[in-house]
């Protein structure tokens, strides 16, 4: 890429960093340092603001760059991701959002621990939440690295490492200084920027085809070299039964994982009531649905205008399809329009990564301080000290994510996000649904449900073809691959539910009627909600 691209993209990105740092300082100007303020932003955001923030938290670079890129390369099969990512929100809306808002205070563990013996349950859900968050963070760090590689033409290994470190350092500053309030505003700004950029590109693609979607599809199919097959399922996940099962596994993880993501769950505590939580999810579904519909247009547009060969030449997994499309839509390489559009898209993608990283770091620091630290230390201290621990935890998690992000930089971003979803669906969702809806659920059931999903999900990934046994694996030299699928969801999600059931059935503990009544009444009416 030319120097113009780099300068302009860097300028725009610096502007975003300056604005968000400004927000952070402005917001932390009158912060109280209370846990309420740090984890939940004072609980006074409006449904619309929180809806934009939810959308901002959810639309990561993997969606913006990854899905469009996959559609540009494999056509219809990439579109299946868009569908799964959106339908997942119905689980959140129907079963989780309002009830979690009514029952909990800051984290997933609050909801579960209300009915159970607190310590083991908090340690279990805290551990699984941190695991999910770290996996999600690593994916975003790797995405940032790939973007820099594109911007600098793949020359600077050092530049790539420094970008990952820089992104990590920035997010630690945002989170530890601004807490939930600053993070929420960053998400809102980012969601508006991302949606604006996506709308502009979509309109330009449709204008190029004079609004004729049919011709867009036909051109994409023709240019792909696959003809009609490009518009039908099977290009990526056709083939043998392993590939097909792998896709079903991924589909299951996507649709069930969203409701177990810690950074999504913690967003419901930033609004005052369950009704506001519901309305913010309705906002989020509208925004996210519109966004994923547009990624389909962008994906087929990239296939039609840039061509799968050019996309693949730039990045084998298609992550750079959208920036290349922007370059073409603006008038091609070397033109002013192309340079500007390209720089804008790269800067928006950077902003996206930065914001998602901040949101996930905050959620995981809450899990460390509010769940793990609060249960593992001896006595209860001042609430203020918990916030201090959360700030330290944000720094610690930042360091871990930076280190892992540098190690895993050659891994596929979409795979890591899929894995985070699989772990969330296996470890967090069963325990959450059981404690909200099952009268007879016990402490042992809760602990087994978490570890019974978490351990298989992580172990199956270690034994999968992603880690060893092939030329594209993380460790190509060794072969301890025993599990054929890349995504463990198909096995580990049912195991999580099963383990929770077995744990409950075998425990001698009598379920506490009164505490179940409390959870049920509180979850549906909001009585006693904070």
């Amino acid at each position, binding site marked *: 890429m030319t120097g113009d691209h780099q300068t302009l993209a860097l300028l725009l990105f610096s502007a975003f960093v300056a604005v968000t740092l400004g927000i952070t300082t402005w917001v932390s100007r009158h912060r109280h340092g209370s846990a309420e303020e740090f984890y939940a932003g004072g609980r006074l955001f409006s449904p619309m603001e929180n809806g934009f923030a939810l959308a901002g938290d959810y639309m990561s670079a993997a969606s913006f760059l990854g899905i469009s890129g996959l559609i540009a390369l494999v056509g219809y099969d990439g579109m*299946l991701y868009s569908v799964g990512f959106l339908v997942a929100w119905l689980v959140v809306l129907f079963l989780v959002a309002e009830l979690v808002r009514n029952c909990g205070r800051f984290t997933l563990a609050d909801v579960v621990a209300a009915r159970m013996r607190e310590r083991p349950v908090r340690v279990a859900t805290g551990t699984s939440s941190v695991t999910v968050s770290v996996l999600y963070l690593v994916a975003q760090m790797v995405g940032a690295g790939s973007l820099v590689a594109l911007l600098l033409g793949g020359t600077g290994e050092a530049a790539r490492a420094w970008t990952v470190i820089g992104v990590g350092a920035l997010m630690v500053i945002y989170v530890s200084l601004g807490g939930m309030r600053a993070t929420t505003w960053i998400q809102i700004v980012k969601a508006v920027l991302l949606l604006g950029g996506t709308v502009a590109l979509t309109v330009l693609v449709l204008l190029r085809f004079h609004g004729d979607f049919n011709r867009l599809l036909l051109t994409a199919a023709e240019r792909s070299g696959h003809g009609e097959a490009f518009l039908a399922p099977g290009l990526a996940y056709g083939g043998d039964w392993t590939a097909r099962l792998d896709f079903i596994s991924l589909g299951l993880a996507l649709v069930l994982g969203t409701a177990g993501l810690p950074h999504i769950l913690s967003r419901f505590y930033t609004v005052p009531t369950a009704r506001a939580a519901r309305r913010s999810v309705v906002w989020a579904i509208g925004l996210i649905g519109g966004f994923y519909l547009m990624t389909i247009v962008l994906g087929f547009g990239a296939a039609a205008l840039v061509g799968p060969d050019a996309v693949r030449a730039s990045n084998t997994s298609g992550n750079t399809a959208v920036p290349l499309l922007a370059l073409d839509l603006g008038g091609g390489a070397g033109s002013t329009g192309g340079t500007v559009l390209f720089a804008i898209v790269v800067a928006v993608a950077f902003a996206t990564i930065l914001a998602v990283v901040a949101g996930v770091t905050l959620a995981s620091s809450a899990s460390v301080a509010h769940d793990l630290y609060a249960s593992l230390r001896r006595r209860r201290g001042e609430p203020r000290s918990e916030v201090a621990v959360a700030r330290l935890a944000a720094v610690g998690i930042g360091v871990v994510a930076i280190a892992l992000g540098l190690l895993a930089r050659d891994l596929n971003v979409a795979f890591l996000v899929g894995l985070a979803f699989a772990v969330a669906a296996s470890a967090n969702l069963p325990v959450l649904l059981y404690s909200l809806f099952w009268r007879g659920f016990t402490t042992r059931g809760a602990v087994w449900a978490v570890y019974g999903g978490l351990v298989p999900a992580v172990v199956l990934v270690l034994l999968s073809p992603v880690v060893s046994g092939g030329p594209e694996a993380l460790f190509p030299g060794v072969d301890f691959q025993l599990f054929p699928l890349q995504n463990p969801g198909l096995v580990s999600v049912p195991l999580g539910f099963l383990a929770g059931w077995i744990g409950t059935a075998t425990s001698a503990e009598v379920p506490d009627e009164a505490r179940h009544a409390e959870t049920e009444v509180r979850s549906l009416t909001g009585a006693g909600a904070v």
Partner: protein
Amino acid sequence: MRYDDPWYDALASGWGESADAGAPAAVPTPRGEDRAPADVYLEVQRSEAFREVRSRYRRFVVPAAVLFFAWYVAYVVTATTAPEWMARPVAGAVNAGMLAGLAQFLTTFLLTWAYARHARLRRDRAALELRWDTQELARERGGAA
């Protein structure tokens, strides 16, 4: 002092909402510590009014969740096991699979709208009354204020 009515959504900024101007932003204090006596919740749980709210919620959510999950799984399984069916042309370049994908978007939007409407009309008011009653009951028992 504190405005306990959940219908009153106190806002951080009032952006995009027609919040009552001049109303001071109510800052809720943590109430997790002052637990109501356990028998209050048991009593409310067994009451007719609560059962009505619960069954209204479940009567909508259970069938709707089963429906969308079955429809999504059917879509994913059909796409992977019967791609030739998905490839059948419908109109121009648009085939059955493309329509099925867009239908998933459409049903998601429709179910979201239906759920929000159902909750607003059939559940919110009754739940709010129960919330008041429960907190009132807890206060009487001297558990918490």
